[in-house]
């Protein structure tokens, strides 16, 4: 087997615990990701699933260099990007992209789509102004939006259309690795299906390696051939999605799968929820 594109070895991440911040001085650190080993092969689509507080978003942000690990190794194409300084990491930024959960807040409301999509190209000194605008139009076309949208602002778009812009921006620099964090969670069923199918097509067309972070296990099944189940900062189970979902080994994975309400009437399902807790 070829060397994986991304390799995590005993990865640990600590973040400031704002809830425990004293009135003066820095907030104490709290460990969110507690020693994770994970290999992501080139061209793979891996889902990281877990409930709130499991650390899945922190892993995603660490993978794209937004957060520095506190321990362990984060190898990207053989180089430990967890220990790189900003200058060394900069060339890799074009190859690694992220699609955010909330396109409403991740797209600058004062810029037109043309400017939003030209920004990454500008940052890496690619093309002329006219060339970048042309490329922005192509990107809109790739994600299924009319080129006439170039001069529109984010607030003029629907939620699904904004998420398409978020995807277009992420592929602007033709990256090889994309991390998508809960990108369909706020969308209607029909819009969600369109975005999932779009991402599946782009993955094939551009030979992307994809990490898809989600709390929704049904969505994961559409897009990812592999899954890692996260609980309290540790991976409790990983494997092929079809196999893990059909025959989960860890009790937590079993509970998570059983908690997903499938659209089939089933007497007694509701009673398997604990009466206490929360």
């Amino acid at each position, binding site marked *: 087997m070829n060397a994986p594109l991304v390799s995590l070895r005993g990865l640990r991440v600590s973040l400031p615990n704002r809830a425990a911040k004293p009135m003066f001085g820095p907030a104490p650190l709290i460990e969110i990701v507690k020693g994770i080993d994970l290999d992501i092969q080139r061209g793979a689509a891996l889902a990281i699933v877990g409930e709130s507080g499991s650390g899945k978003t922190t892993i995603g942000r660490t993978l794209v260099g937004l957060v520095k690990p506190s321990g362990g190794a984060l190898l990207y194409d053989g180089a430990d990007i967890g220990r790189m300084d900003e200058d060394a990491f900069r060339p890799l930024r074009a190859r690694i992209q992220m699609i955010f959960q909330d396109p409403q807040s991740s797209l600058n409301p004062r810029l037109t789509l043309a400017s939003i999509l030209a920004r990454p190209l500008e940052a890496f000194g690619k093309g002329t102004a006219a060339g970048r605008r042309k490329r922005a139009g192509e990107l809109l076309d790739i994600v299924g939006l009319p080129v006439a949208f170039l001069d529109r602002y984010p607030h003029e778009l629907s939620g699904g259309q904004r998420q398409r812009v978020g995807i277009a921006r992420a592929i602007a620099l033709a990256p090889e690795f994309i991390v998508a964090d809960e990108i369909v969670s706020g969308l209607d069923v029909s819009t969600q299906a369109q975005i999932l199918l779009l991402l599946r097509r782009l993955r094939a067309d551009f030979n992307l390696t994809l990490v898809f972070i989600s709390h929704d296990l049904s969505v994961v099944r559409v897009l990812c051939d592999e899954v890692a189940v996260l609980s309290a900062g540790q991976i409790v189970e990983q494997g092929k999605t079809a196999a893990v979902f059909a025959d989960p080994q860890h009790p937590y994975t079993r509970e998570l799968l059983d908690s997903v309400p*499938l659209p089939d009437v089933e007497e007694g399902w509701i009673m398997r929820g604990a009466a206490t*807790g*929360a």
Partner: protein
Amino acid sequence: MSGAVLDIADLHVALHRGRTIVPLLRGVGLAIQPGEVRGLVGESGAGKSMIARAIFGLLPGGARITRGRALFEGRDLAAMAEPERRALLGARIALIPQDPMTSLNPVMRIGEQVATVLRLKGGLDRRAARERAVELLAEVAIREPKRVVQLYPHELSGGMRQRILIAMAFSCAPRLVIADEPTTALDVTVQRQILRLIHDLQHRQGAAVLFVTHNLGLVAKLCQSVTVLYAGRVVEDGAAAAVLAGPRHAYTAALLSATPRLDRPADALSPLPRTLIETLLAEARAYDAANAGAYR
């Protein structure tokens, strides 16, 4: 139907802005019998929240009921005087809102918020309301209720906050509870606990529930019956088991095919056909043209 807790018929709601009229509900009909749990399903803009808001008299500015009726225990909510309606809300008709964070007062202790409902809607005095608040929290399976009544909303998890709101909704033995997407912000394991809680309380009190959701899975697990909306119209209505196993309307079928399932292979998913959406929108426009008088 006679004996229904809620009987909505021919309900038209329109938004009036100057001379433009935007239809929001196009002759909706739905009935809920005592003790029935009915799902109200649709995508954003279908009008499901608009129905809930019409019942509560909380339509957005410029929008009003232009035709039809919404009978609660035989009395028309649309024609009711404001004080009379207000006496029903929170007591006989209760709401479980979508977002537990914004629905609780952030600067008031939990116990006081629950007690306020009991005083204003349940007619208890200050002391009895305080004591009853602790009991209510225990009934929604909150551990250490005596401690929790002293806390502020931000000190609780999302699931705990939703339990508090459910306790408040069921506190005065309502006949009708409207649950507006009450689990959207929750993890799936907590979601099931919240559904169980609504199910248990509804069952114990014999209350009817209108469960507003976009999730057909929640309908399958909680509801006996379902009404499917598109563009302010009811496209399908029936027993939940029958509708989900064999939808009669193409939209319901398409919605099911567009819902990803963890037990089906990836290629089982298909998006809503554009032609279907165009047909439905054309039908809505044709309806508006033929019933222009219903929106004035």
